[in-house]
């Protein structure tokens, strides 16, 4: 019985998001909502186009992936393949501790330490921007990527490695040509899960992304990803009003994105089990 609680909850989440989000489409078409370039929910008349928010989410996610994937995968290779047991036993908990820092603290850190630093170093108008947010998100995604990659690497049979080493390959060559290729589907799962984490993370993008609802033209432009918009505006949107519905509909879009990511990850993981 209780096993179905998770299923029920997932179902309820979908039902409630859709129930509260759907009414917005009596005011705007789905196309206008998703591809509309202007997000002015409190104007008279309002504009509910979340395209800049979607672009914001994607740009932040992509940039953070560019940073987090090499970092996470390399860390995992170090922990699983290279480090002696003792060092690995220190390095691994470090990565886990990184995962446990509350997102609001990461956001706060980005605001008060990283932002002024970026502003001075790159002489940019504002340190609250896409790059800052992506950097903070990258460090939050690294633990996910690292631990899933590590599992994948560890499940590669020892015999493969030994064979390669016996044939005269160096340790690095064995990792690059044998171990990593053998674990590649697991690593892709790791990357997708890391991206999914970055897509949905809220506090960091709320506090350090700058909050401007526009498509960025440089990595130092401010953006307003979907979770930031929902978190910043939900408090002001009266229950049942158009704005409230529009934010739930944004939640649906966000939910669908992460769902697609997770389904992809599960698919790859299943294929790789066989």
């Amino acid at each position, binding site marked *: 019985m209780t096993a179905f609680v998770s299923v029920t909850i997932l179902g309820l989440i979908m039902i409630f998001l859709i129930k509260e989000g759907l009414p917005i489409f009596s005011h705007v078409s789905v196309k206008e909502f998703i591809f509309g370039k202007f997000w*002015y929910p*409190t104007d008279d008349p309002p504009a509910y186009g979340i395209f800049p928010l979607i672009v914001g989410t994607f740009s932040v996610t992509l940039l953070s992936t560019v940073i987090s994937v090499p970092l996470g995968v390399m860390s995992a290779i170090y922990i699983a393949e290279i480090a002696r047991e003792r060092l690995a036993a220190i390095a691994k908990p470090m990565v886990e501790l990184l995962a446990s820092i509350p997102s609001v603290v990461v956001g706060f850190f980005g605001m008060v330490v990283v932002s002024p630093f970026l502003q001075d170093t790159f002489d940019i108008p504002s340190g*609250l921007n896409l790059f800052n947010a992506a950097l903070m998100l990258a460090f939050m995604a690294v633990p996910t990527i690292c631990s899933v990659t590590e599992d994948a690497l560890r499940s590669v049979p020892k015999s493969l490695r030994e064979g390669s080493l016996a044939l005269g390959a160096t340790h690095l060559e064995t990792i690059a040509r044998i171990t990593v290729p053998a674990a590649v589907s697991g690593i892709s799962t790791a990357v997708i899960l890391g991206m999914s984490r970055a897509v949905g993370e809220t506090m960091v993008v709320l506090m350090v992304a700058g909050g401007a609802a526009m498509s960025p033209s440089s990595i130092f432009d401010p953006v307003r990803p979907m979770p930031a918009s929902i978190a910043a505006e939900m408090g002001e949107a009266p229950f049942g009003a158009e704005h409230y519905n529009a934010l739930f509909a944004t939640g649906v879009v966000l939910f669908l994105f992460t769902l697609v990511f997770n389904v992809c990850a599960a698919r790859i993981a299943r294929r790789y089990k066989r």
Partner: protein
Amino acid sequence: MKKIILLLALVMFSTPAFAGKIEIKGSTTVLPLAQKTMEAYMALNKGTVITLSGGGTGNGFKALIDGTTTICNASRFIKDKEVKAAVEKNIVPVAHRVALDCIVPIVHKNNPVKNLTKVQLKEIYTGKITNWKELGGPDMKIVVIARDSSSGTFDAWKEMVMDEERVTPAALTQPSNGGLVTQIGSTKGAIGYIALGYVTKAVKIVSVDGVMGSDKTAKNGQYKISRPLFMFTNGWPEGETLDYINFVLSPKGQALVKAAGSITLN
């Protein structure tokens, strides 16, 4: 006008407002003066409990309409939409003017620009002017900072400066007056707008059309970007709520209003 008549008409049929513990929510602009007056009031009337929170004018009205607050602090008048929502729930918003406020454009303290015209301000905020050199300043990108859309300051600025035109989507947003002043203090090319009471040493006020926003110019009407601040109640207040609002309006209360950085009514 119609709005006010509607409100008055509804007052007559309304049930008496709930008295007892007073809850205040809403505009962050009204927050400092509410804080000062409520602390003084509680010191005078032992046993009265007043709770206070911010969240912005929009949130305040939402709370008033949902019946979760006794007083809603507002830095603008109630919108038609909000009146409609209130009426549907049998809530009758009644406005009490408690102070005046003026909104001033502020820039980083090292910015040499001293004066801007209203048209220039509008063009900055619609994104037509993007560099300080177009305004006689250094060659530096303008970082436009606006308040989040739930704030009354946002609405007032839109009405009085922007002529209801849209703020450029490139504008950074800040959820509070305090957040805005902090960000401008640390951003060289920034411009923002803020209630006079929140100005700190890290930022510089820019005059508008040659008039510097101040206590005096706001009161005599020379400075145009000023507005009344309100406390809204559900129906005509009674008991302690009435007592508190009368206290805010009394000479003693108004002295506290002044100490909180807002402008007294007369």
